[in-house]
């Protein structure tokens, strides 16, 4: 079998025509497909290997995820597709999925004896190309090559679109839009702006026309460079062309950057969905929390992602990254950047249907659910700090539950903030949030969302529970102040600015009641901050951030712990709801988030920090997920996304929330991907 020809046909632009024409080159295809199979069960591994060989594939097997990753890294272009088990002892299959998505961009198929909807959804949201239920039959394996072809085709199309401008086909614009904006949302908004950029970009499509598109492996260093460039440009202005210039990496094409950017955006979006992120960011920045150090490089990447999504100011992102990577980061830039973000958000706010009527939506609920899934990576430490922060905040409407701080990250803080001393509280909260959320850059993004959040919150709150009145009003006005909050502190608790605080525990509580989803909702506490989510939704990328913020704020629910999580959910939900969950865009990711958020609300209890920890975990997962999502979203990005940009953001948020929820539920950090209660998701 001619592997190279097969590959060639897949990767060359002309291969597209090859595919179309049923080219003879692909006669042997899919024979020779290079498969890497990972499964800790020796029995299954052996059977799979045999089956794959019977399909005439070239098989490499590993029984550990680490081994698989190192194999992939050693030989970046040596594999076409990866088959991985979900449950593995050394690393969760979904984590591996995210790693692969981010670093190698290979299609990954998940397998498990578990056919529960939740798990399958998890696979989807993490960007798996497919999900096979064990026992796997050989017939199922015979078709896996389609994923490879599909992926390459999409890459090619992307490549083509961006590159073929010369023909005067301005399509690239759209495709570029799709490229840049992880979620179509972005594309829509910035359509005009992007269009201009794209035109410029397409103009200089230099070597893009090379048929053969060598796969670029985004190593950690390369990705760092990428993130730095994106941060420098600002997520809004980060267009592939400029990023490419800044990166100045020989051999890297604009298309490579474009596709990576798209993924990154999705990833950020996902991250921002978790409010935790916000606090995390601040924490990272301010506190160089050692936990950061413990964060995997992924966190760093997450940060980058967040930054990239524009939510995080470049500086903050850099900081977060540093923090995330265990390095001390100066706490500085964030405030400023946050401000910028804020502006962005405000701009977006109008789009969000704040409280316009959305409130009474079921969608809100949905949103909540979505958020549910968003992991809030609140580390215990952070939680503690949150708690403190919460307490320090004077007039928080919400009673800062002593325990709560940790779990809910920023939510409780936010809640409080919203009302009155937003500024002050924000500051203090920011601190707390920072501590708690140190996890990822997403946190930064959360701060961004603040302004919006407040608005959103108010709106959502009302819609959801009907309580919102009191919450709403303050929330809106608060927005601006909310933003300030995070800014003030180096730590910035973006979440704080959520000002979700405007929605005091009441909203949270109400929202809790409102969402009686069965979500595992371990995150019981803060569901109340829904409104903010709404705001975020519109914001596309911002949304991601806002989510985080929200989550943070939410965390501050009266009960504080889980509340915050709920809050996040609420936010998400509301945000999502507004977005019209119904849009086709909602990926599973969102759904799960929605569910999660719902769950959060229903629980209505304040979970102890344990959940916070989980949240942290989830945040991590979220981040991971986000990366994966970027991948998957990229693929299906095109139309729907453009139409409903919001949804994408929501989706991310939701998923983030969901993750959060899940994390919360699981009291253990490794409860990463469980607990998606998809049942109630109306979508």
């Amino acid at each position, binding site marked *: 079998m001619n592997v190279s020809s097969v590959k060639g046909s897949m990767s060359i632009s002309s291969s597209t025509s090859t595919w179309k024409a049923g080219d003879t080159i692909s006669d042997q295809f899919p024979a020779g497909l290079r498969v890497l199979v990972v499964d800790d*069960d020796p029995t*299954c591994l052996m059977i799979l290997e045999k*089956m794959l060989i019977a399909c005439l594939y070239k098989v490499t097997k590993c029984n550990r995820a680490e081994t698989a990753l190192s194999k992939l890294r050693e030989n970046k272009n040596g594999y076409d597709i990866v088959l991985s088990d979900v449950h593995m002892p050394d690393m969760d299959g979904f984590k591996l999925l995210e790693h692969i998505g981010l670093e190698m961009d290979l299609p990954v198929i998940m397998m498990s004896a*578990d056919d529960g909807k939740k798990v399958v959804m998890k696979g989807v949201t993490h960007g798996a190309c497919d999900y096979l239920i*064990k*026992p796997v039959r050989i017939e199922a394996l015979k078709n896996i090559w389609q994923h490879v072809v599909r992926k390459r085709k999409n890459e090619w199309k992307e490549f083509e679109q961006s590159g073929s401008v010369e023909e005067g086909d301005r399509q690239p614009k759209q495709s570029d839009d799709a490229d840049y904006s992880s979620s179509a949302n972005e594309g829509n908004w910035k359509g005009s702006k992007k269009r201009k950029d794209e035109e410029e970009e397409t103009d200089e499509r230099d070597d893009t026309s090379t048929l053969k598109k060598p796969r670029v492996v985004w190593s950690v260093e390369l990705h760092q460079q990428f993130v730095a460039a994106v941060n420098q440009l600002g997520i809004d202005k980060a267009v592939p062309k400029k990023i490419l210039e800044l990166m100045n990496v020989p051999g890297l094409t604009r298309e490579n950057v474009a596709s990576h950017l798209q993924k990154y955006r999705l990833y950020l979006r996902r991250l921002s969905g978790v409010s935790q992120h916000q606090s995390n960011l601040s924490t990272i920045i301010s506190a160089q929390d050692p936990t950061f150090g413990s964060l995997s490089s992924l966190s760093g990447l997450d940060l980058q992602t967040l930054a990239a999504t524009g939510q995080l100011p470049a500086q903050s992102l850099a900081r977060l990254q540093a923090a995330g990577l265990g390095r001390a980061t100066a706490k500085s830039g964030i405030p400023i950047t946050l401000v910028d973000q804020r502006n962005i958000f405000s701009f977006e706010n109008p789009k969000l249907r704040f409280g316009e009527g959305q409130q009474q939506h079921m969608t809100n609920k949905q949103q909540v659910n979505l958020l549910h899934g968003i992991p809030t990576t609140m580390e215990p430490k952070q939680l503690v700090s949150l708690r403190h922060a919460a307490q320090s905040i004077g007039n928080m409407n919400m009673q800062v539950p002593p325990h709560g701080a940790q779990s809910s990250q920023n939510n409780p803080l936010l809640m409080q903030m919203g009302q009155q001393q937003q500024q002050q509280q924000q500051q203090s909260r920011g601190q707390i949030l920072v501590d708690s959320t140190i996890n990822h850059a997403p946190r930064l993004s959360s701060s961004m969302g603040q302004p919006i959040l407040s608005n959103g919150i108010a709106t959502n709150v009302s819609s959801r529970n009907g309580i919102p009145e009191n919450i709403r009003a303050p929330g809106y006005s608060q927005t601006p102040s909310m933003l300030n909050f995070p800014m003030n502190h180096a730590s910035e608790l973006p979440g704080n600015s959520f000002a979700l605080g405007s929605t005091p525990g009441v909203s949270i509580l109400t929202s809790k009641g409102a969402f009686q989803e069965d979500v595992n909702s371990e995150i019981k506490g803060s569901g109340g901050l829904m409104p903010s989510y709404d705001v975020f939704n519109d914001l596309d990328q911002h949304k991601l951030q806002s989510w985080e913020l929200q989550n943070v704020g939410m965390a501050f629910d009266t009960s504080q712990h889980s509340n915050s999580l709920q809050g996040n959910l609420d936010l998400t939900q509301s945000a999502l709801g507004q977005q019209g969950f119904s849009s086709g865009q909602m990926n599973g990711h969102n759904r799960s988030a929605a569910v999660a958020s719902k769950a959060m609300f229903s629980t209505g209890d304040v979970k102890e920090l344990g959940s916070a920890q989980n949240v942290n975990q989830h945040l991590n997962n979220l981040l991971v997920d986000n990366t994966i999502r970027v991948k998957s979203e990229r693929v299906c990005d095109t139309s729907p996304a453009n139409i409903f940009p919001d949804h994408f953001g929501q989706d991310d948020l939701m998923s983030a929330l969901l993750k959060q929820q899940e994390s919360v539920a699981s009291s253990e950090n490794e409860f990463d991907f469980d607990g998606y209660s998809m049942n109630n998701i109306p979508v």
Partner: protein
Amino acid sequence: MELVQIQRRLVDYTKSLFMEGFLDAQFLQLQQLQDDSNPDFVFEVVSLFFEDFEKLLNELTIALDQPNVDFKKLDSHVHQLKGSSSSIGAQRVKNACIAFRNYCDVQNIEGCLTCLQQVKQECYLVKNKFETLFRLEQQIMASGGSVPTIELGF
């Protein structure tokens, strides 16, 4: 015993295993994977399973013996056993695992203990069946015959 007789015995025996639910269609898949280049494939895989389940059963016993049972861990082990048993077609073991998982979900220790016993039983039972099967196959091979392929009517 004559070759033909042994062969027939093998076929009947295999069919009975299917009928009784010990094996399911997945086992057929395994058999189909076996070919000349890999004549002992099924034997190897099933042997792997035997080793595997011993370990898992051990883990399960230990886990349930703890003062504070870690249900997550328990569930994860059971899930693993479910996966491998389903991969080779050991249907009854798989079903026992499913029941076990349900008890894990609700954290019912008594139920789990009962299920563990059941799973153990099924594992050893199917191991026994396989061993008989392999023995028959060996006899056939030793007599110079070829192992008949099972064709299930259902």
